[in-house]
């Protein structure tokens, strides 16, 4: 049985009598047959076809993480601090995301188990529930901010909040009701590509390319030095690229797609391409709102759509509309990926069927969790008087704070020879991953110090 080499998790005494074949298996098998056929053929076209068949989770997770709060964080960054420090900083954060996400892809391909499931079985329910609580709270808060972004973006076109939230929920239903992982992935990839709409918006602001190039090469100091305000933005930008839900989502999507050990090198390519595309969109967003900084416009009270309104005198109605649509797309795609990440984790822990290949009748628990999370988050956004941008920035900060414990689980699993066999992380990957954990922990501690002792950074030139 099986096409690839057995992993360390392969049951030792599996007979055909043990196996119950499901439609989920049949759908996945059809996908794997196409991969095997493309791999067996020679020629450039076949190589591209193989690449086309295998990419997906990496690009989706990276463009999914360029979500509503992330794009609003980037917009706030450009408007409040310009490009000097933050362009290279954002690229650095995407490099960190590659290091982290590569491990999840490798884990999923090697073990065919989701992240939540592996944490539960290897570390036990005590640590497993800690991890699930972190994920659940983080995902729910982030989902709220996705609906904030959708509401704000559609608000630019005069759509009332209830209609914006309702249309987002309808979109979510349509997106996951395809009962086929492959169709869902391709559809969402096509929609996620719209994240690059921030590139033409940036071009419409006629950026000074010399300044952009200079900022990327020289990496100017943090404007205004260290202070609570700047640290919130710094943490929000880190939280815009590395968050716990990404770990759970990419590993589970890798498993659902059916990637194997043979696919790991193209899985890496998928992750790097996703990070590159997401970094381009993020940098473009900072460049797009940088004119607001140059014109000394305050960004204190901007919401997603208000950035678009503020940009309208500079880039026209069309450019502003594109910006608002970009915010809507970011929120819509992420609301789908984050809800699915919660549902995958629930299914893995509760041992219920969890796959996008499942029909509703066989995946009632999976789809119920997915819709319940989204609908509750959407309802909260309709509460009047929420300080939206503040909530958005804080949610990204919380995501950064929750990352170090999540990364330690990932780090230990990726180095667990009993489940990974020879695919354990190489030394260079461990050094990079340790660096990411230390960096994120220190960033969180600096934020904590700035809150507890706001004047502590005075000697560094901050406020």
């Amino acid at each position, binding site marked *: *049985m*099986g*096409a690839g080499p*057995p*992993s360390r*998790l*392969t*049951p030792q005494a*599996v007979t*055909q*009598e*043990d*196996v*119950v*074949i*499901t*439609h*989920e*298996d*049949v759908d*996945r*098998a059809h996908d*794997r*047959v196409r991969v*095997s056929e493309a791999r067996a053929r020679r020629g450039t076209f076949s190589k591209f076809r193989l690449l086309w068949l295998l990419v997906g989770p990496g690009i989706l997770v990276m463009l999914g993480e360029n979500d509503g709060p992330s794009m609003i964080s980037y917009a706030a960054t450009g408007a409040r601090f310009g490009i000097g420090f933050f362009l290279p900083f954002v690229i650095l954060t995407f490099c960190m995301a590659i290091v982290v996400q590569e491990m999840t892809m490798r884990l999923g391909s090697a*073990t*065919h*188990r989701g992240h939540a*499931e592996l944490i539960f*079985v*290897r*570390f*036990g329910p005590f*640590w497993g529930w*800690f991890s699930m609580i*972190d994920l659940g709270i983080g995902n729910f808060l982030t989902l709220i901010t996705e609906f904030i972004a959708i509401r704000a973006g559609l608000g630019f076109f005069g759509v009332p909040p209830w209609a914006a939230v309702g249309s987002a929920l309808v979109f979510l239903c349509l997106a996951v009701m395809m009962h086929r992982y492959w169709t869902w992935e391709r559809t969402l990839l096509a929609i996620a590509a719209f994240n690059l709409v921030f590139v033409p918006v940036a071009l419409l602001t006629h950026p000074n390319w010399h300044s952009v190039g200079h900022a990327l090469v020289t990496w100017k100091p943090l404007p205004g030095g260290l202070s609570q305000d700047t640290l919130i933005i710094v943490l929000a930008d880190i939280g815009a690229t590395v968050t716990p839900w990404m770990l759970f989502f990419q590993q589970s999507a890798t498993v659902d797609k*059916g990637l*194997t050990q043979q696919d790991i090198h193209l899985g890496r390519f998928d992750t790097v391409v996703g990070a590159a595309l997401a970094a381009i969109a993020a940098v473009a967003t900072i460049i797009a709102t940088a004119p607001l900084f140059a014109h000394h416009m305050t960004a204190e009270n901007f919401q997603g759509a208000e950035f678009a309104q503020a940009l309208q005198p500079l880039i026209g109605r069309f450019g502003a509309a594109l910006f608002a649509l970009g915010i809507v797309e970011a929120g819509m795609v992420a609301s789908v990926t984050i809800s699915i990440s919660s549902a995958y984790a629930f299914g893995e822990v509760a*041992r219920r069927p969890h796959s996008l290949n499942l*029909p509703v009748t*066989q995946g009632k628990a999976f789809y119920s969790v997915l819709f319940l999370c989204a609908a509750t988050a959407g309802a909260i956004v309709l509460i009047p008087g929420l300080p939206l941008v*503040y909530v958005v920035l*804080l949610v990204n*900060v*919380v995501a950064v*704070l*929750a990352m*170090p*414990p999540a990364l*330690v689980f990932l780090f*230990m699993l990726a180095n667990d020879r*009993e*489940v990974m066999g020879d695919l354990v992380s190489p030394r260079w990957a461990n050094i990079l991953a340790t660096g990411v954990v230390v960096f994120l*922990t220190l960033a*969180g*501690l600096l*934020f*904590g110090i700035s*809150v*507890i002792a706001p004047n502590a950074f005075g000697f560094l030139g901050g406020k």
Partner: protein
Amino acid sequence: MPSKDKGHSAITSADQELVLSSLEPEQLAGLKKHFIPRRHLRGFEKFVMWSLRIYLLFMMVVVIYQVWAGLH
């Protein structure tokens, strides 16, 4: 081997053959319930995990304080 996926159309023998020949054993949904042994955590590993757990709880208190201060 059962040939039906409950509540859905029958799975043919051709489907079974396709699945068994193209998926690795642990990719099968039905085999994912097999037992994986618990990992024994060493002292240093427990120390790191507890330290980061305390760090996270402390930082959450800081964030809650930040929100409270922001609202007042």
